[in-house]
């Protein structure tokens, strides 16, 4: 067992650092966006970004190496240099297009998406189709050279900013549930598309409803075959997987929780002096450390081509549970700041403890988003533990 990266990677870290020292921050550039774009282009050319994507489509086409990926991310973060773009376009559409798209689609969409020139949103969830995604009812009908699309999508991140949507629509209404769906690309800037922001309990507005009323897209803006959209949407490219990154937010949060317990008062004493607070902090810390070193183990085994077993399928629910524990202790510690809304980009009371309300509510958002906890439990039980599918739930497709 070894927690060090080793000399090869430390040398690589030097190389990345040297590149960054030379190119970031940019010497004298007034337009920040242009500076970032120019820097990203250089970084791609050096093989530091979009490492799993072919050069032909704007990537750097490097051999998979999660540790190199990690070193790059760490070094870029250290100096605040722009990294790979986030969002559903880069993380979901690009891999799907590379696997299933027509050549013209790859050529037209991939590189501009990687450069941020095109912004995408995802059109999967519907009001009547949450966990049971395949029951979606948005209809698409081919009329002449166009698909005409009507229906409603929900929980659509970035819809108000997106140029295009990749969308699942039911094009074969008479086919079986999973066989009647197609995967289309759709221009968001047209009259048949209406975006309405969905306000969350936190006051934030990251999600939208999208109403489609006769929205149109060309016949050949379909990815994969007609009626095969469900399978297309399940495609993901194998790419560098860094299981460690996800833990760092939890670790930061735990560090802040300890600080909170030092600052907060209970009966005129620091709350940290109370036996129950000490016990609960130590309990949570054990979970945080367990998660951290399990991630190191998983990554190490992945690197060695070994199967890390159950842990992969547990990570999300484990993180969710730790988030709940942290939220619950914080809610106790912040006193009457727990009566307030989280700050929406402006100041609050003196200690500003109401920022923890973001965790109190947000830990629930995490539990719900990206596969609700009960879906995770099904996946763990069936895929992780090999328990049988229940008859009544057998229709649920991939179970995720």
């Amino acid at each position, binding site marked *: 067992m070894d927690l060090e990266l080793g000399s090869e990677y430390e040398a690589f870290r030097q190389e990345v650092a040297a590149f960054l020292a030379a190119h970031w921050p940019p010497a004298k550039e007034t337009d920040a966006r242009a500076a970032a774009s120019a820097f990203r282009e250089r970084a791609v050319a050096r093989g530091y970004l979009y490492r799993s994507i072919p050069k032909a489509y704007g990537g750097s086409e490097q051999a998979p190496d999660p540790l190199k990926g990690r070193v790059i991310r760490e070094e870029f973060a250290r100096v605040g240099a722009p990294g790979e773009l986030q969002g559903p376009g880069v993380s979901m559409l690009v891999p799907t297009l590379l696997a299933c798209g027509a050549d013209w689609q790859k050529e037209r969409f991939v590189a501009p998406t990687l450069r941020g020139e095109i912004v995408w949103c995802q059109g999967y969830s519907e009001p009547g189709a949450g966990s049971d995604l395949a029951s979606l009812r948005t209809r698409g009908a081919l009329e002449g050279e166009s698909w005409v699309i009507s229906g409603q999508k*929900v929980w659509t991140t970035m819809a108000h900013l997106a140029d295009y949507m990749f969308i699942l629509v039911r094009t074969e209404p008479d086919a079986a549930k999973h066989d009647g769906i197609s995967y289309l690309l759709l221009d968001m800037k047209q009259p048949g598309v209406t975006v309405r922001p969905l306000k969350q309990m936190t006051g934030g507005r990251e999600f939208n409803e999208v109403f489609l009323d006769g929205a149109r897209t060309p016949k050949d803006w379909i990815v994969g075959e007609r009626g095969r959209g469900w399978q297309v949407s399940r495609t993901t490219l194998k790419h560098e997987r860094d299981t460690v990154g996800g833990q760092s937010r939890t670790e930061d949060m735990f560090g802040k929780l300890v600080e909170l317990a030092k600052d907060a008062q209970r009966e005129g004493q620091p709350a940290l002096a109370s036996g129950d607070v000490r016990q609960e902090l130590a309990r949570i810390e054990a979970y945080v450390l367990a998660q951290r070193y399990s991630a190191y183990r998983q990554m190490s085994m992945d690197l060695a081509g070994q199967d890390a077993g159950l842990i992969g399928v547990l990570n999300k629910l484990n993180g969710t549970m730790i988030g709940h524990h942290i939220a619950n202790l914080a809610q*106790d510690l912040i*006193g009457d700041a727990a*009566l307030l809304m989280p700050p929406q980009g402006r100041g609050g009371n003196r200690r500003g403890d109401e920022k923890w309300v973001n965790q109190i509510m947000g830990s629930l958002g995490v539990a*719900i988003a990206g596969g609700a906890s009960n879906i995770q*439990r099904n996946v763990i039980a069936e895929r992780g533990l090999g328990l049988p599918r229940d008859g009544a739930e057998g229709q*649920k497709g991939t179970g995720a």
Partner: protein
Amino acid sequence: MRFRLSDDQAALQDAVRDYALREGDAGARRRAFESDTGFDADFWSGLMDLGVGGLACPEDAGGLGLGVTDLALAAEALGYAGAPGPFLGQVLAALAIDRFGSPAQKDRWLPALATGQAIGTVALAEAGDRVRAADWTARLEGGRLSGEKRQVLYPELADITVVGVAGGFALVEKDAAGQTFEALDVADRTRRIGHVAYAETPADAMPAEADAAEALVDAALVLTAADAFGGARRLLDMSVDYAKTREQFGGPIGRFQGLKHQLANMAVEVEPARGLYWYAAYAFDHGAPDARRVAALAKAHLGDVYMQTARAAVEAHGGIGYTWEYDAQIWFKRAMFDFAYLGAPSRHREHAARLAGW
């Protein structure tokens, strides 16, 4: 052995719940929630017309002469309905004036509070979780009040504020000089609170030993617990209803045993807690030796139960439960209120432990 509601009590509770649910569902709750003030005058006046303001006021002041038990039953109903407005401050102010006021103070305020002609509130908590009467540092000297209070319900709306001070209470009228209000961006927008600073504010004394004054805090704890029970019960019902109607994978999600068991666990946490708040109210009204402890235990327990039920309920709803538009979030934020108002559960458990001589 008749540890159950009398017919009158059941009728009272039904009437309050029916009114608050009907008007709330018809828009009053959401209107208040979205408003700047958190106050819906129509809803409030209807509630006062039911006599809720005077439940525990003496009959000669136009009240019903009932006790904290009856207030708690109303609080449960209002919690269930997610009713907006200054109920808690109103009835606690009346309780304080009835217990500690001079004849003149009673004459002046109790009839007005009982009928709703006046709005009352209480200012108890101070910074640093100073919630108990013995810890209050606000001072009344020579008819002038100075100090800072927190968690004051509807401070700017109230015609009369009962302020906890060293040595008892001070009555402060609405337009008295030297009051500074700090509005807060509160989570529970159905029950607004703010900070109030008093600087040489003209005020009227209501003397009370700290131990007697503390009874007002106890009453506040009991009523908060009752509200929490009502709210938790509502979240359970709401989650069960959603599970019966929301369809996924070809049928209602409530047929999935995973969710069923979670809802059953929720019910096991919530429903028995009714007995706890009932007893806390009963013990208060009967001056039982454990009344103070049980008030603390009830507030602590129900604050936790409500909050955890709210978390479970939002999870049981999935994404919709996390939106601003769906009402589950209103009860979630009421749970946050009941959890933190006058101190988090751990404070009250510690207090109960001390009172037990532990």
